[in-house]
């Protein structure tokens, strides 16, 4: 379980690609046993940050340690104890499932290798298809194979870059159950994702936008810190109401979820006035709702990094 020891500890980490700052002086601490969600829009710098943490990219500024080793100078020691699952499938498509796991087993000098591979295949439920080429697996199965390969050597830290993209809900549920089991045994996890339900399964989340961390903390903390208020409208012609609302003062978002129209704004009074004026005579009803994480993220994305880094506990 979570104890005090920092597993990832980075300060002012910066990365530039041909002059463009992609990760801009970020600080982050992840403690042992924590599952930290790493969120942010496309191109915000999640993959770049993860790559710097495990020594695949050289930072242009800042310092950091991972598992107590310096990320700039001791990456070979870090790599021994880190499991990294890349965003893009990066095992060998022209090798069979078993051959891929064998390859990984040899690289980490696992003994007896066959036992490790058998156990991994068994957990995956792929024993019957172990001689199938990895390239012929469906997208979701590739992800599961990649996860199995990245935990086979029992790492202390797991870096997962969008591990469940394209994975069905049941498999995702199982995947997260396993992540929690592993964390319970002391494994630390940093996982990037675009899924809100996954963010909610993390102990803590970090939200990055344009290379800067703009929100962090537990999910309730991040929601509270956003200062957003939500009203839910039911009934009436929701598409028309939503269109009208978007032109009104104090309305930041108006999005339909099935039969509910979520209306989000920062100022509760202005929000209520605008809603009341819009739905008058349409037969729709309004009631106060709960702001959800997605609303916060949409706000953060619209702000484009302007929001202060004010969420939750200092890390």
């Amino acid at each position, binding site marked *: 379980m979570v104890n005090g020891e920092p597993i990832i500890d980075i300060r002012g980490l910066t990365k530039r690609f041909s002059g463009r700052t992609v990760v801009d002086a970020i600080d982050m601490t992840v403690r042992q046993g924590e599952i930290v969600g790493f969120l942010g829009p496309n191109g915000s710098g999640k993959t770049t940050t993860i790559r710097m943490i495990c020594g695949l990219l050289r930072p242009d500024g800042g310092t950091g340690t991972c598992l107590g080793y310096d990320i700039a100078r001791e990456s*070979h020691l870090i790599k021994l104890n880190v499991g990294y699952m890349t965003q893009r499938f990066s095992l060998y498509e022209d090798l069979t499932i078993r051959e891929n796991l064998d390859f990984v087993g040899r*690289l980490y000098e696992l003994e007896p290798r066959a036992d490790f591979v058998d156990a991994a295949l068994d957990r995956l439920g792929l024993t019957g298809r172990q001689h199938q080429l990895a390239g012929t697996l469906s997208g979701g199965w590739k992800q599961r194979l990649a996860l199995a390969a990245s935990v086979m050597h029992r790492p202390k830290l797991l870096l997962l870059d969008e591990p469940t993209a394209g994975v069905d809900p049941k498999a995702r549920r199982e995947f997260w159950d396993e992540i929690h089991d592993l964390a319970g045994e002391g494994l630390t996890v940093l996982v990037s994702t675009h899924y809100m339900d996954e963010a909610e399964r993390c102990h803590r989340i970090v939200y990055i936008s344009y290379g800067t961390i703009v929100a962090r903390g537990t999910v309730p903390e991040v929601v509270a810190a956003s200062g957003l208020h939500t009203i839910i409208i039911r009934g009436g012609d929701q598409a028309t109401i939503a269109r009208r609302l978007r032109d009104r003062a104090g309305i930041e978002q108006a999005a339909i979820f099935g039969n509910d129209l979520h209306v989000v704004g920062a100022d509760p009074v202005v929000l209520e006035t605008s809603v009341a004026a819009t739905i008058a005579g349409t037969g729709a009803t309004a009631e106060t709702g709960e702001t959800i994480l997605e609303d916060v993220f949409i706000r953060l994305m619209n702000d484009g990094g302007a929001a202060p880094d004010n969420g939750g506990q200092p890390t």
Partner: protein
Amino acid sequence: MRYRRFSGSRITAVMAKEVIQMRRDHLTFAMIIGVPILQLILFGYAINTDPRQLPTVVVAADAGPVTRSLMAAMDTSDYFAIADRAVDEPTAERLIARGEAAFIVTIPDHFERDLVRGERPQILVQADATDPAATSGGLNALTTLIERAIARNGTGSGTPDGGGVELVLHRLYNPEGITAHNIVPGLLGTILTMTTILMTGLALTREVERGTIENLMATPARPHEIMLGKIVPYIGFGFLQVAVILIAAALLFAVPLEGPLLALLTVTLIFIAANVTLGYTFSTIARNQMQAMQMTFFFFLPSILLSGFMFPYRGMPGWAQALGEVIPLTHFLRAVRAIMLKGSGMVEVIPHVWPLAVILALISVVALARYRRTLD
């Protein structure tokens, strides 16, 4: 987990993976076997070109006016460069065996006297025929030069066919002057250059292109382990080609192997190692497989042009010869021609082998220095 700088397990991991991938790539595998045979048949007939300035030693037991004028004529002609005119027979034979002389011209005792008497004295010409294209032109030219030398001095009967002199030709090492015999070492070298550089050149760029490099780099494998793991299998594939070429050469062209097989294999090992390391270096520089392929061809062209494969080395201008010296194929050709056709052993080919070893060492250093440890 303790960290070891050199892990047999990690090298084996990469090696086994490369072998599996190669085996599964049927087209490439078929080409490894098929290309040598095809080339051997196609190139069985060589390209003939006129060589220049072939080093010649003269063993002159007589030194009259005809001899002097003959030597002067040879010296001024384009074909010959008289390296030494006062050597004894054993020295001359050593020079030709080492490849430092292409011709020995022996002028017998009493040559001038016999010529004046019309007794048709013999001039013995021994030619290094391991490269028949190079020597046959020289032999033809020599006949003409002798005629002129005699005519100028007004001696002998001056008949057009040999000018009162009997020219005795000895083609050494490849008596029939069969081009196929010479082309086999050449093909062995060029095919190995082409395929081994290309295969290893693609080995790392393929990982970059497919994105698998990210996973590989995130594992504890070190640069030298990855390099060894990727190079060793291709040395093996190179030897597979050597076997194919040698067997096909023996069956199709009855090419002899005069020297010891072990010497041939040793030289070939160093040569293949130099090539795969070069290919690996290319793959650390190239950003994709296309670039790696272009670099291979860029290197391959001067290799066949300047190494003495396409054109006789001695026919090239000085700057081209200097360039040729840094090409592994040049040294390999010399060593393998000596072993296969002259019957030289390891000791005799050392002068050709050490430059290869130096080239190998230098490329290895560059390859390791060039390896990108990170993705940026």
